[in-house]
């Protein structure tokens, strides 16, 4: 008897969440199969790839990334350049400088920068905070206001500030709300419950369930994603059916494999190649574990991952 493959599609599916507006808007999620299991059922929306720039412009970027932005004077210039890289689906603006323990830039200064970017590009936008929960409560609320009408993804509300960020982004300005938790399926779920109880529509939440560079406690991140997808699809848990976005660049470019110069580590070979490798490996792994979008930095990584996605779809 001939072998008949059984479809492994689930009756539940991941929510489809639109980000951005106009011709360039993207849809995250929507699948009812395991990551890239297109043989079980068609996957309508391929995972998306974003490019990350920060409020410090070129200052903190690795040398190998700087060359791609040659001639850019302002962050808005960089945004335009980034939007032109091959394979980019959306733009992510990270306001690192707002951290009170770092540069402590004022909310006004950062929001002004964000507005310039909004005016400069028409790609869907992901707006990331400074990782300081208290500052983000204020900063991301203002950011939600500044991108009014753009249907941007505000990354992210956390347990400590979900009320302020959720209310501003999800209720007042109808942006997409990012929900960030620390590599634990239960904490991810709890935050989604809290946000929906606040009145945020579950269909406009995108999760960041935590991330790490490959090799740096990465198995926790991967297993959390695996389990979130299993609960969402196999058990039909509506409080976990939100698509997942994973910021990769901020993790991958901060580890020694990407940062150590060739002079310090001659046996490790070319630094740029190493950085790209870390970014590509991390991104490929989180996509295979169920991320619906990744945020990257190096144009070569972006092109590689975007090609990989196309090949697998």
């Amino acid at each position, binding site marked *: 008897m001939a072998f008949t493959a059984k479809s492994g599609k689930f009756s539940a599916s991941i929510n489809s969440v639109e980000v951005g507006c106009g011709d360039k808007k993207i849809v995250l999620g929507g699948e009812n199969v395991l990551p890239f299991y297109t043989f079980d059922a068609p996957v309508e929306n391929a995972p998306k790839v974003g490019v990350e720039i920060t409020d410090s412009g070129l200052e903190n970027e690795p040398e190998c990334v700087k060359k791609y932005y040659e001639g850019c004077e302002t962050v808005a210039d960089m945004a335009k350049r980034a939007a032109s890289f091959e394979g980019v689906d959306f733009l992510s603006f990270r306001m690192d400088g707002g951290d009170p323990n770092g540069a402590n830039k004022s909310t006004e200064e950062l929001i002004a920068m964000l507005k310039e970017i909004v005016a400069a590009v028409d790609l869907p936008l992901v707006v990331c905070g400074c990782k300081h929960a208290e500052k983000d409560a204020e900063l991301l609320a203002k950011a939600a206001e500044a991108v009014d009408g753009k249907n941007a993804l505000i990354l992210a509300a956390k*347990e400590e500030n979900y009320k302020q960020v959720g209310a501003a982004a999800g209720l007042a300005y109808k942006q997409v709300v990012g929900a960030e938790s620390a590599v634990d*399926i*239960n904490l991810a779920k*709890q935050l989604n*419950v*809290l946000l929906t109880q606040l009145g945020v529509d579950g269909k406009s939440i995108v999760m960041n369930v935590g991330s790490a560079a490959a090799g740096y406690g990465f198995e926790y991140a991967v297993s959390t994603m695996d389990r979130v997808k299993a609960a969402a699809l196999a058990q039909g848990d509506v409080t976990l059916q939100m698509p997942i976005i994973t910021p990769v660049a901020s993790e991958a470019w901060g580890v020694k494999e990407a940062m150590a110069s060739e002079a310090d580590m001659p046996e490790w070979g070319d630094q740029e190649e190493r950085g790209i490798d870390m970014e590509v490996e991390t991104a490929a792994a989180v996509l295979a574990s169920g991320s619906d979008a990744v945020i990257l930095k190096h144009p070569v990584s972006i092109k590689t991952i975007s090609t990989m996605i196309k090949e697998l779809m």
Partner: protein
Amino acid sequence: MHKVTFKFENSEDVTVFAAFGESLLEVARKTNVAIDAPCGGNGACGKCKVKLMGGTLDSKKTSHISDEEYAAGWRLACISKIIDDVEVLVPDIASAYKSRMKMADLSSAEEVKIFEELKEQIAEVGIELKNNLEVIDVTMSAPTLDDTMPDNERFSWAVEEVTGMDKIRVPYSVIKKMAHVFRASDFHVKAVIRKTGKDVFVYDVLPASEEPVVAGIAIDIGTTSVSAIIIDMLNGAVLAKGSAGNGQIRYGADVINRIIESGKPGGREKLQDAIIKETLNPLILNMCASAKIKPAQVYRLAIGANTTMNHLLMGVDADPVRMEPYIPTFFKTNSLFASDIGLKVNPDAHIILAPNIGSYVGGDITAGAFVSMIWNKPEFSIFIDLGTNGEIVFGNSDFMMSCACSAGPAFEGGDISCGMRATDGAIEAIKLDKETLEPTYSVIGDPGTKPVGLCGSGIIDMIAELFRCGVINPKGQIIREGRRIRRDEFGMGSYIIAFEEEAGSVKDVELTEADIDSFIRAKGAIFSAIRTMLSYCDFDISMIENVYVAGGIGSGINMGNAIEIGMFPDIPVEMYHYLGNTSLAGAYAMLYSTEAERKVYEIAQNMTYIELSNVPTYMDEFVAACFVPHTDKSLFPSIQ
């Protein structure tokens, strides 16, 4: 040297001299002034708040003290250094754990009901309500110049006659008083003896004209509190009942901290003194006075205590209990006598210890499991003891499994800023008005007693009500505002149950977000332990027919509320039964009935212990349960 004066709300000042730079908490400890410091005194818990009335202390402000409080003189004792003569007020809540030893009023039927019911239940299952202590009449012929047999030989020979046994053991305490008692009563005496299959042991001799009291004491030694009863060994009647805080508490709120403290030089002696000299002996003395008997008439004791507590009681090294692979010195021992550890009762009194079955499942649980009677029922039941360590037993007449989880001291009021034991002044039940958020509560004590703090059952009610009224979200964060809701400068919210003027102490009675968080962890530990144990045995909650809940967390738990906050599984409330202090009840059974004692040993041997830390899914279950009612709402279908 500086003069330090401790002032109290309801008792006399204590004055002591201390060196420059000494910690106020240390000075208090040395002086036996009770200031609660469950975190061990590192500024973490904020429970040791005292009010500076005069002089100056070198004391930092912490997140536990608001600006207004600091201005009003509130300081944390643990981080305050003596630099001047000072007067400090120790509020009731800070010393509440020691909260005045309390003798129960036995005229109320409630207090003795549990023991009467237990006796009936024991009789029903066919266990003989009898022990081997008895009183015999011994008549000897008086010695003469022709009959020169010494007293001891004369007496032993007479006892042989009466009992038909040929091995009679007469201890030193009896030899000492023999000559006098025999001659005062014309060699006609009563003897209190223990008769076993092998020999007869003589505890006491009295003139035949006296009616001897044969008393026994059952004690529950909890990590946080101690309670005990004196009974008549001949008919099982309860003669007196008392309770007190465990004096060891100043060395740490939980068993781990106690073990660490006992490992320091002189630590074992300090902890043994704290429980025996400071807690048990005064408690026994008070109970004997209230029962109008002499301590020397107490011939037997039975103790239900967790593994660490019975190790520290005996002065045995408890460190191996804490260290992998967690091996206690003993599960069972039957060679312990009152004089060995300095208990002020009859020196030959035998101490029965309810047997341990693991490092974290001790005699309190084996005694409790006996009382729950789950070992005698064909249907499946769960027995839960809500203490500093939550212990759970699951099974039926065919098998029993047990496990322990670290719930922390929250159920007994520890780790909660206004938490206290279930004693006078504790709010034990509470309701909120959904609109105004005004509370209605009942307080333990005489009518009119003002609230000082919350005991476990009060906290369960409080959290359930706050959740029902939409004051807190499932994470326990306060999301409504109102007259009774306050936020400190760090943004931490709290609900004020009784403002200072309504309260029976010098502080508001409040429940803070940090308290709620502690409690949610405690309830999460219990719920996840139940879930983990059931799934470990491949059982489902629907197979459970009865849940027996024990613990001294209040006179009763509102089971509906406990389910609503996700502490207990969502099964009909009729299946829940609150048993009160089963460790004490079990100790009572072991004390009064020799057959019950044997049964408890048998139960202990047949119980399998699961180490939850070895079950990979436990941590996951725990995080999922740290949410009100639970991260997985489908587990609580009855809650909207």
